[in-house]
């Protein structure tokens, strides 16, 4: 029943990237089916952010090929939306106008609906400057959702939030993903977060994929379950492995 495109929505073939002589990524082969929630973990400097930026079209690969929805990626892809570590809201635009940025035509209803989804329907007329860090990231999420993306790229969007806000946001992202069914690539340095949210966790080590595991725990996930602990330990062990330290 699944068409080839559905089965391989994002495809990377031998993708490499180097900046001014130093190699960041080499020979990345990766296939992500449509609707899968993938978490990318790795130490800082492992190239995970670069990989996301390549898929977002913010960088061009030095070698290899990236296909999204069956067609080669050129510049930014309209179906992909990025959430950054910082919310990157325009401080001179009210929340609703930030959500509708880049949209033409009648976007106001869509913006209101997206704000409602992230629980900020009453903050549309506020300036971003008065919002808390967590609220700003919610607005950034609404901005990503408003154009009904088929691929959501999350570049450590929760790393600057406090622990409670973070758990809130994790639940929100999981809920919205389950409702919309789009494909998600989440970068995180938090293995627990990866195991909580993702269908599949990929570990990047020195520019290569070193671990690729499916998280076979039913949702909603209990962080205290035995299987959760096993998987978390397995991935953490791989992250901390001597080969990674040696580099």
């Amino acid at each position: 029943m699944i068409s080839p495109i559905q089965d391989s929505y994002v495809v990377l073939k031998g993708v490499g990237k180097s900046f001014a002589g130093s190699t960041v990524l080499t020979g990345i082969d990766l296939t992500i089916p449509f609707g899968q929630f993938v978490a990318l973990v790795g130490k800082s400097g492992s190239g995970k952010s670069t990989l996301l930026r390549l898929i977002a079209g913010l960088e061009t690969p030095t070698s290899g090929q990236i296909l999204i929805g069956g067609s080669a990626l050129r510049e930014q892809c309209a179906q992909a939306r990025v959430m950054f570590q910082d919310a990157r809201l325009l401080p001179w635009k009210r929340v609703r106008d930030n959500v509708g940025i880049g949209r033409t035509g009648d976007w106001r209803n869509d913006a209101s609906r997206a704000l409602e989804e992230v629980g900020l329907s009453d903050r549309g007329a506020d300036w971003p400057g008065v919002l808390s860090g967590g609220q700003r990231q919610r607005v950034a999420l609404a901005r990503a959702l408003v154009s009904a993306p088929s691929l959501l790229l999350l570049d450590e969007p929760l790393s600057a939030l406090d622990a409670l806000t973070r758990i809130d946001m994790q639940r929100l992202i999981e809920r919205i993903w389950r409702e919309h069914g789009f494909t998600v690539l989440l970068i995180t340095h938090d293995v627990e977060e990866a195991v909580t949210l993702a269908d599949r966790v990929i570990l990047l080590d020195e520019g290569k994929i070193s671990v690729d595991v499916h998280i076979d725990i039913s949702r909603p996930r209990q962080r205290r379950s035995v299987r959760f602990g096993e998987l978390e330990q397995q991935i953490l062990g791989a992250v901390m492995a001597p080969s990674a330290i040696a580099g």
Partner: protein
Amino acid sequence: MSSRSAPKSQRLSGDVLLQFLLSWSVPAIAIIAWQVLACRGIIPARVLPAPTAVLRAGVRLWRTGELQNAILISSERAVAGFLIGGSIGFLIGLANGLSRISEMLLDSSVQMLRNIPHLALIPLVILWFGIGEPAKLFLVSLGVFFPIYLNTFHGIRSIDPGLREMASVYGVRSWSLFWNVILPGAMPSILVGVRYALGLMWLTLIVAETIAGDSGIGYITMNARDLMETDVVLLGIVIYAILGKLADTIARLLERTLLRWKPEYQQ
């Protein structure tokens, strides 16, 4: 409830009143002392006439229509010079901020010219244009040009690259990028330039009108100096101060309107 909140608001308005009285007490005392010293003849009227004498000179010149005329002419010069120099500075600042080629072509030349104090050009400007209107417009435009240019250029270059990247991910390009991201992002810096330029505008005009001219506030004060009318000279100085304050107030209002998104402009 109301009985509890009433004293608080009274206390608040009391604080405001106290603040007002404190900040105005020093100038008020200075003016009263000046008036007393001048009336008793301790300060000769030729050196410093009493505030009431300055006021009388103002009323006298207002009745003849000279004062309004001079204020109008000086303000026209200031505004015209500001608009000419400001728009050239803004446009070159935009060009250099947006295009590396334009920057390489123009920026170092502008930076070199900036080192010449524009008032040092007065003798040259008089040789070129005589003492008429073009000379004054040229000097004011030149004085206004540099702060507007520098702050527009700097404002565009200091826009958070993360916001530009976000805009590009969300498909915001060309005109939309300029209107929604670049111009509002550079606006705080541009307005700093505007405020600075307004100060330079009056300064340049005062110097230009005082050195050479046949109309305007500077002309009235120089004429009065020849006739030893110290009260009119003082009047001219006061008028310049009021006009300068007015320009600054307009700049503040502009900031409050255009930068109302800034947390410091929200109650």
